[in-house]
């Protein structure tokens, strides 16, 4: 009996962990690039990155299904290696990454843009190459915002349902994440199962919100000191 709860929990944990790792690096890379990008297509690229946030998850799921499906470009490419992504566990990760990426990207980018360009320029004049500028100056200063972004996207990927159901389907023991399991439990009238799973999700989500509140409180460290000195002279 407990395995009906443990199975979705275990699948969700694995999915969320994989998703958060991928989204973390992808999101930061995209945010760093776009924060400094001055080209003509800036609005267009930005729009593409944020699109999954604005579209209904079923629309995104449908698009993913067409892309990865048997007749889709990616599906046909993967078929050459005798693999398929649709209705498999990696599909839960793909769907969750696509849906949570915009949050990670947007929030991180905001954090990077808040770092004063003068501070980064100062690092450059002191001999730091672009990597060193990023890791020793930009990232530490943007860290509270990036941490908040990570937590936000983690929570989002935990609750991802529409696109997951379309791309990964409901395969108990393989792709049935907690939200999918909740949906089908309610369909089947098994309210007890649904409630237990709902409680688990609520606990994790509220912990995430509390963590975010904590990181926001530490935001002051990232602001540079402009005309705000205490007069100790």
């Amino acid at each position, binding site marked *: 009996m407990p395995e009906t709860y443990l199975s979705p929990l275990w699948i969700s944990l694995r999915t969320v962990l994989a998703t958060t790792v991928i989204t973390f690096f992808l999101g930061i890379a995209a945010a760093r690039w776009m924060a400094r990008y001055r080209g003509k297509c800036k609005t267009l690229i930005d729009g593409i990155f944020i699109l999954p946030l604005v579209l209904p998850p079923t629309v995104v799921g449908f698009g993913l299904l067409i892309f990865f499906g048997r007749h889709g470009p990616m599906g046909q490419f993967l078929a050459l290696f005798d693999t398929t992504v649709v*209705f498999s566990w990696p599909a839960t990760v793909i769907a969750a990454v696509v849906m949570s990426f915009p949050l990670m990207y947007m929030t991180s980018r905001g954090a990077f843009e808040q770092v004063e360009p003068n501070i980064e320029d100062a690092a450059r004049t002191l001999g730091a190459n672009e990597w060193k500028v990023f890791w020793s100056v930009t990232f530490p200063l943007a860290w509270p915002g990036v941490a908040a972004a990570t937590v936000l996207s983690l929570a989002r990927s935990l609750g991802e349902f529409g696109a997951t159901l379309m791309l990964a389907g409901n395969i108990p023991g393989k792709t049935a994440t907690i939200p999918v399991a909740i949906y089908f439990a309610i*369909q089947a*009238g098994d309210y007890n199962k649904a409630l237990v799973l709902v409680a688990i999700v609520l606990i994790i989500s509220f912990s995430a919100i509390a963590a975010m509140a904590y990181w926001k409180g530490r935001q002051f460290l990232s602001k540079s000191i402009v005309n705000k000195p205490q007069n100790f002279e």
Partner: protein
Amino acid sequence: MKKIMSKTKILVSLSLLLVWVSLISLMGCSSTTASTTSAVVTTTKAAVTTQAPASTAATSTVPSATTTAVKTTTPPMPTTTTTAAAAVELNISAAASLTEALTELNALYVKNNSNVTLTPNFAGSGTLQKQIEQGSPADIFISAGASQMDTLAGENLIITSSRKNLLNNSLVLIVPSDSTLGLTSFTDLTRDDVKQIAIGDPASVPAGKYAQQAFDALGITDKLTSKYVMGADVKAVLSYVESGNVQAGLVYLTDAKASTKVKIVATAAPEINAKIVYPVAVVAATKVSDAAVAYENFLFSSDAKSIFEKWGFTVVSQ
């Protein structure tokens, strides 16, 4: 630091309160009684019956002559015509597998009963049953399985005297029309090159339950469980197979016939098929029981029968 601590405290207590409230409300929903549902139903029904009778009264006199003239060429229908009838809206909750057949039937019904507006709601039978339990404004319920109807009967949510078995269907094994696997029977599903099989979720979709029973009867369930991809209704299962993302699926004969992208490779044993009965009943909370009964009678008419059979159903003889 102190400020952050108290902020978190408030946040935590608010969230606990929220959790408690949602748990209570969810508990309350799971033990619905007829009284609560009818209370909900009355409020939703209030919006429905607002058609002005004046307009129909004016038109009813003129076409009655012409409609009777037209009617002489077709076999007499047991349904009543629009003589001085008020405008009525009927909500029909029907199993997803009835989509094509009912759509055609409804068009015919509305043509002959212009004062009636039919609003169908197609979904998995389990979903429809839940909706009726929660007070959705359905007047007629056609289920793809007896258990959903039994549950509603046990909760006094249907008019028992109106419950009749309407249709039979059969369960078939389908594959994508370009499949090269050469499956010919249910037991072929145990082959290694069959990686994924789509069935309805047995917990809520009758077709899924029948599929499981079919597998149980053949003793192959254990080998197949890991291959299941579960759909929320039989149409979802059909579309999984059509897309080619699964190698095979179990749907009703009527669903397979409605699609051009799948081919039928096997039929379930007659013992299984005999159980696939579609009961119909009038929902107890209906406000337009006369119109609902009239519609139900239409479903048993010979016009309706030919349409049902066209789509692959077998009509239960009365």
